């Protein structure tokens, strides 16, 4: 209906139209947030406490069990400045199917944990388990004030948990649907644990990278322990490394891989956009090419809008016209990227990507 037609509608007609639509709106429950669709109940099928998941030794909330392996990805996800620790446990006698370096298949019974802290206070530990049936399940546990244990959070999460040590004094615990939104958009639900992220050739310019801990496992140690099958010696002879024209580009592509690649990839499980931000351990040159081909000078949905009228996903040498960077820096709910798991712009990460875009030549060839 165009505007002129609108003016021709008589008042009773408009009233009927409005009434009908309002009825529809009421039926829609317009004031109800999407998260309300999820049950807020505690799932009785999940362990009620973190201590029940088998992470820690008996009577300890700090010492992990001997068969729990720590790891530290080289390109971490930005989580509003939280400090993070990560662990994995494989069932005894099992190994990881590493035939696809970019999508390790973890055996049923595998457990993973990620602990979030602010200013030394443990706030939350997230948990992923591959059940004996092969399905994945997700949970998150909120630490008590004494730091002695953590309790299972409601399936709908906690929008603003008061945590004085966290930015702005509050902390968002994700909903169960948020877990799947991030973790089920790539070839494997386990993020940050793969050949590229655990490569011993760690990127010295990676943003927010934590140094590997003494007891961490990485690609060589997993292979040495026989935990990766089949054993692929070429991965040690030529360790995974992002293909890049410069150290800045390497770090920027790594940042996008760690923060965006779990949704923007070519696995078929990600979002239905022709945008690839995941890098490959198997074929680094090809994944770089795919990233550049899907971003440089590509008109996005925001070209022609008041927000960014003359924009491209990445406008080489023009960060101010690059939608990717604008959305990284935005925290407006409609625009921000990543869309969840963060309420604060990552200034350091954004600055890195801005430097990289600024360095790009306007005539950069994706096949370079």
């Amino acid at each position: 209906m165009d505007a002129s037609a609108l003016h021709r509608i008589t008042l009773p007609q408009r009233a009927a139209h409005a009434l009908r639509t309002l009825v529809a709106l009421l039926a829609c429950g317009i004031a109800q947030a999407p998260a309300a669709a999820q049950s807020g109940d505690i799932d009785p099928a999940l362990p009620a406490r973190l201590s029940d998941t088998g992470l820690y030794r008996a009577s300890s909330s700090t010492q992990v069990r001997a068969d729990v392996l720590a790891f530290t990805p080289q390109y971490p996800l930005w989580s509003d400045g939280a400090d993070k620790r990560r662990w994995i446990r494989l069932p005894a006698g099992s190994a990881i199917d590493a035939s696809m370096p970019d999508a390790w298949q973890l055996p049923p019974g595998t457990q993973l944990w990620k602990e979030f802290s602010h200013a030394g206070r443990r706030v939350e530990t997230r948990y992923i388990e591959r059940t004996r049936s092969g399905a994945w399940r997700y949970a998150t546990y909120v630490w008590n004030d004494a730091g002695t244990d953590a309790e299972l959070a409601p399936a709908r999460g906690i929008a603003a948990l008061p945590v004085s040590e966290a930015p702005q004094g509050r902390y968002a615990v994700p909903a169960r649907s948020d877990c799947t939104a991030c973790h089920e958009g790539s070839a494997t639900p386990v993020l940050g644990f793969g050949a590229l992220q655990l490569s011993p050739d760690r990127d010295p310019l990676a943003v927010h990278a934590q140094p590997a801990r003494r007891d961490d496992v990485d690609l060589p140690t997993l292979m040495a322990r026989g935990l990766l099958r089949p054993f692929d010696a070429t991965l040690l002879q030529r360790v995974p490394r992002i293909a890049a024209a410069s150290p800045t580009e390497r770090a920027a592509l790594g940042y996008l891989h760690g923060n965006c690649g779990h949704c923007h990839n070519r696995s078929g499980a990600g979002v239905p956009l022709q945008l690839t931000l995941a890098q490959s351990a198997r074929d680094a040159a090809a994944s770089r090419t795919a990233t550049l081909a899907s971003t440089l000078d590509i008109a996005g949905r925001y070209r022609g809008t008041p927000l960014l009228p003359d924009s491209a996903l990445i406008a080489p040498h023009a960060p101010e016209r690059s939608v990717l960077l604008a959305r990284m820096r935005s925290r407006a709910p409609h625009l921000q990227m990543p869309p969840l798991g963060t309420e604060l712009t990552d200034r350091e990460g954004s600055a890195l990507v801005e430097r990289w875009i600024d360095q790009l030549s306007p005539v950069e060839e994706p096949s370079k």
Partner: protein
Amino acid sequence: MKARPAVPSFWVVAVAATLATVVLTAAPLAAAADNPNAAKVARGQYLVSTSGCHDCHTPFKLGPNGPEPDMSRALSGHPQSLVMPPAPQLPPGPWLVTMAATNTAFAGPWGVSFTANLTPDAETGLGQWTLKNFTDTIRTGRHMGRGRPVLPPMPIPVYNNFTEDDLEAVFSYLRTIAPISNRVPEPLPPAQSTAAK
């Protein structure tokens, strides 16, 4: 004979418009026969027609009997050509939402939302979507299953009651309808409830 009150007659028009939506989309139901895929598509068509999808995703036009869904643009979302002026500013009080005459644009505390193009157009609709993209969107309440929250008035809580089979049926039906090229505007945040291009 005493004239009938005016307002109820318009309710008749509105009900008729709703029925027309169902009737106009009902034809292929008879084609289901014994073909499982056809049965799935028919089931999806039934769900789409009875679950209010057309109410917001098919633009309304002014017909001879009043507003009615424009089935030539069935399920194609807010018309690209309809550039909305700034949403009216409501005074403080219980009024919360304003909407376009097409029933495809809505302004409220969340900003301005525009209904999506559900046709299988590759560039502007669901042409590149997989079934998983679709079910993830309904299950998570997030755009494309992973992005920003799907905005009001999309009744995600209601549609979360669909079973997996229901959602597959709906998606299967949506793959069969005519693709319509119509690039729906991006939503506007509250502070930017101005003209949308």
